[in-house]
């Protein structure tokens, strides 16, 4: 609204524009908006359309990250709609749909749960086995329990991710 007003007054001479811009800054400072209307810090949750970072060495994930087109989360397989460490997500990567496991989250975590600087995923196939052969960043130890609990005797087995990890935190 304010920007509309500003453009309307642009034609009426420099003086008026000066006055208005100073008013706008005052209002702006009171509202607390800078570049946009958001005044609170983002929560950094993993929801649909969130960009993620592939941390395994699969050819698909590596090429997507190198091209600067990181995968996008298009579904989270839990009832909350927000992804947490160890949850399974569906990602759109290079025009394909792939499943992945979240191995680190950027949002604020509970005590003793590591908070990562990026939202990390490891790509998996339908049977739960990873597409890559190595993970080059640390993964939380709580995944040991969570992935074991998620695995089913005759269904998907997610524990192979633990085998390709290089370091636990």
């Amino acid at each position, binding site marked *: 609204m304010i920007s509309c007003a500003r453009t309307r007054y642009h034609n009426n001479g420099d003086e008026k524009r000066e006055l208005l811009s100073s008013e706008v800054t005052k209002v702006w400072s009171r509202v607390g908006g800078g570049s946009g209307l958001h005044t609170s810090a983002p929560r950094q949750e993993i929801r649909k359309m969130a960009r993620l970072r592939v941390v395994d060495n699969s050819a698909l994930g590596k090429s997507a990250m190198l091209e600067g087109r990181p995968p996008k989360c298009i579904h989270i397989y839990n009832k909350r709609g927000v992804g947490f460490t160890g949850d399974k997500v569906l990602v759109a990567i290079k025009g394909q749909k792939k499943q992945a496991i979240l191995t680190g989250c950027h949002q604020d975590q509970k005590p003793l749960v590591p*908070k990562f600087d990026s939202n990390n995923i490891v790509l998996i196939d339908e049977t739960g086995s990873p597409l890559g052969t190595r993970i080059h960043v640390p993964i939380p130890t709580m995944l040991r329990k969570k992935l074991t609990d998620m695995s089913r005797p005759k269904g998907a087995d997610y524990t192979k991710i633990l085998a390709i990890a290089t370091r636990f935190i």
Partner: protein
Amino acid sequence: MVGVGARSGAARLFGVLQGLCRETWGCQARGVATRASTRVLPFIPTQDPDVIRKVPHDFRVVYPEFLPNPVPEWRNRLREKIERKDMLARRSNMPIPEFYIGSIMAVTVADPNAAGKTNRFVGICIQRGDSGLRAWFSLRNVIDHQGLEIKYEMYSPLVQNIEVLRLEKRLDDELLYLRDALPIYSTFPSDMETEILQEGAPVPVNPIKVQLKPRPWHERWERKNLQGVRDLGLPERFYKKAKLHEKPWEKYDLMKEYRATIPEEEQADIFREISSHYPLLESTRRRGKRKRVLPSLS
């Protein structure tokens, strides 16, 4: 520590105000007090000047979690008293060393999922908060080019050991800007050795100024008046806007300071209560410092 004189002045002012209010409002104020669901034990200030003098002047800096949160709605003097007892009991089992924001620490926790059932994490303390048994601190480190932060509750029974590898302070009260700094500033080797500090020496302040990555950042750091950061290199409009958000009058706001702190008299009262444990607390501190001296001798 800063503005203690002003602090007690404000306390006196508040006392006068309270008295005036009680006279004018009378029964109304009393009615509110009785209706409140949580009962707050009355505070009886200590009269003995010797006791006040005996409290080591740096206790409120070294053990900030012994001072309760000053928000009046959350005060409950009985609960605070019991919590302090539990804290001392925990400290007698597992010594918690003196540390500050910017100190490099190693924490060992019990972790059923880790190999060996324990998990050790080394990092720089970037934030600490809360009081009583809920006191916590956050450590940050960069491992395999991946920034990591872990929050620890100081009095959690899962915490097995807290070591201070390098005891030092930084120029700022919170180091959250390390998230937006170059990774080199928060990288510490996990096999770092404990560094030496002379016994009785003051805690050194590290005057390092970190280089931030270019925007976008997690917060608008130009508005935070950071001391430990190199020139942010932003266009002039950012600093103009930061100027508009400045609140230079807040440091003169006595009532704001009053609400944000525990009165000096009450602090003395709290530290008098734990005074029987001074030898224990002090010996932990000294032992920690002496341990840092020993490796140089050997």
